[in-house]
């Protein structure tokens, strides 16, 4: 099963993901208010955090919905809100620990990321490759490589200083 992964060390906050998501959802505007993915920029901390729905295996929003408007897509595993069934009670919004469900003030229904039927526009527009749509295994592989490089550097560095020591 593929998930959207986010690498905070690569995100520059260009917001192409937000623009694309907003247009995908509204079909009329790239304004951020329509976007289901949000990049938070903490300028004093020099930190950027892009985040959208994680499609939890035990999805509290899905469990709590009294209208049974939230279900899981069989193909993509996405947790999806059926806006025709949504009663606008906002329980899902309260249940989500990540603040990843929005409320559509016009149609008075909850809205969230639906993985664009397996072709998430945010990922396709992430020009710095901070977002990826991938298997957990491939994410882990990349994370491991990054750490391995650091370990390798440390080993090399240590060996070098040992060599210097031995020279004395």
């Amino acid at each position, binding site marked *: 099963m593929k998930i959207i992964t986010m690498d905070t060390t690569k*995100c520059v906050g260009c917001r192409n993901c937000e*623009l*694309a998501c907003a247009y995908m959802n509204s079909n009329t*505007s790239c304004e951020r208010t329509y976007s289901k993915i949000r990049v938070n*920029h903490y300028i004093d901390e*020099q930190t*950027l955090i892009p985040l959208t729905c994680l499609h939890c295996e035990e999805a509290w929003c899905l469990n709590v919905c009294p209208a049974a408007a939230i279900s899981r897509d069989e193909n993509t595993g996405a947790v999806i809100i059926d806006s025709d069934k949504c009663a606008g009670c906002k329980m899902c919004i309260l249940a989500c620990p990540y603040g990843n469900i929005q409320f559509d003030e016009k149609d008075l229904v909850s809205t969230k990321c639906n993985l664009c039927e397996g072709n998430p526009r945010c990922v396709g*527009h992430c020009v*710095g490759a*901070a977002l990826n749509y991938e298997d957990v295994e491939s994410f882990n592989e990349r994370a491991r490589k990054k750490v391995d490089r650091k370990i390798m550097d440390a080993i090399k560095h240590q060996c070098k200083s040992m060599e210097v020591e031995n020279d004395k």
Partner: protein
Amino acid sequence: MTNKKVVKTTCRMCGTLCGIDAHIENNKVVHIEGNKDNILNKGRLCIKGSSAVTWLNHPDRIYKPLKKNDQGEFEEIELEQAMDEIAEKLMELQKKYAPNAIGVWKGEGIDFAQQEELARRWIHSVGSPNYFSNDTQCFASRYLSFNLVYGCWPQADYENSKMIINWGTNAPVSHSYWMQQINEGREKGATLVVIDTRYTDIARQADIYIQIKPGTDAALAWGIMREMIRRDEIDHEFIDNFTVGFEQLKAYAEQFTFEKVYEITGVQGKDITRIVDAIAKARPSVSSWAGTGLEHQTNGVNSIRAVTMIDALSGSVDRKGGMKTPKGLGMRGLTIYDEKPLLELKPVGADRYPVLYERRQECHTLMLMDQIISEKPYPIKGLVMTAANPVLTNANSNKVEEALSKLDLLVVKDLFITETGKMADYILPAASYLEREEIFSNSAKQAAFITGKYIDNGLQTEYELFKGLADRMGSGEYFQWKNDHEVNEWLLEPTGYTVADLKTNPSGFIFGEYEYEKHRVKASNGEKPFNTPSGKVELFSQYLVEKGIKGLDGIPEYHDPSYMETKNTEYPFLLITGARVQKYFHGRYRNIPQLYKSDPHGYLEMHPEDAKELGVNNNDRIKISSRVGSLETYARVMHEKEIMRGVVQHTHGYAKENINRLTYDDVTDPISGFPALKSVQIKIEKID
């Protein structure tokens, strides 16, 4: 029956050239996304790329030529009639005044490859040397700078780099896929240094971010070089064998002590130490890039030369992870400068900016405006423009409007009626990038890309425009090919490849494996290692000395930017213009509704303390003025980290808040002739 296809082609919403999958149904593009197989952008696209669907299907697009009638209104006419009348009027002007009374102007909206060369070919074929383009405000200065040092247009080898230094350039907004390459390098351990007056998108991931006073980059570069030399963190073997002018460079660098650099740039000595520490670890895999932040200054060329010399001293030239000096595909060119140089007809600006003309054959667009108005040294009466909108994008818009309104004939070819189009006598509808066949080549990746006519709206291509005019004006012999496909086959001939070969891989046809350190091979074969006059990397340029440009030597000296030389109490703020935003490209795409809604007007970015002193809040209406013009715009109060005090920024390309009403056309770099678009002195008033 629906005719559906998905074509792999190249995006031309900006000059970055990402690969796209264009979904076409019944001769209409319905969806665009990144081509995952493309070797450059690997499936990722910025918002402009996918929004092209709306742009290309826009109800305001023009499909019929327009002619302005006596009441100043546009009327539709047939293409043949338009072409006949335009050709006839151009010939009349040449007869009445002189062959050089007409010119052609290529805008960024088309490309830099054969479309540009077709314009150059046509204007020379009809006997005028006056070719103009957007390049004299973007790109040409960098080209000259790099070319003076390396004898080529280099490319930063970001993916393999151990240290990346970005000066006044913001990859995620301006060259989107470069950000992937930079991140790839960083993932493998590269240090990222960003030097910019503005805390840009890319600065947010920098290991070292340096906020520098506008236009002082060369002083910092000299400070870094002095420290590299002092600590002996330079590549002696490369310097001794492959450069000229090191002794002059070393002597000039001496004066740039930490104290002096701090005084000029506001950058502290400890930051120079941090940068040189990183260079010491990373060399010879240091790659630097400089953007318009540097070239829009009076000392632009020399700043960029100085910056890239850091890479040269570190021995990173054409080394893995350094500055690639690529070999091209070896296509033919379409220009006829050897056959018809027409220098005796005084190309506009060639006298005043000889380096620009000799090395780029670019006439000077700012001097053109003066010349149209004054008719000195000779009158220019007719202009054919394709994909250009100088009313929005050239410095000093008021003068641009005055000049263009004085022309006897202005022809504008575009997809829409632009601000410049409104001033035209004729508007010709343009074919888009999905409606013509062209070749793009990326020498850093040793790859070529071909596009095709995937949609046919019966619109005239660039080739058909110039061939049509040439045929009517008696120079048809230069345009013997039937269409752009035949042109492309001819261009490719010496490479041994054909269009069909390129089509075998529209995601990147690889024509060779990149070879590093070509200068060593060349040297051992007895060839010139670099394509400069000396054959070496030129830290000192004898060529520039011989040009005798006042106040300049062969070393890329630091000179104070114009705003420092003339302190100005009437206009106390320093305006930088031209920082791009994601959604737009220069004057284009404000007519894409979804983008426009997210960014509906121009605004002046300012420091919170400056805003406080002016009594201005976010989104307040303000009036801003320079000595050449004024306009009303909106205030955007930034975080204190994002912009320096006393410095403000306004993006260009908004018709209502056209910032070029404030930019000067008479403060220029003496080598490139580039206007100092990032050194404009202004005042700000709150509108109550």
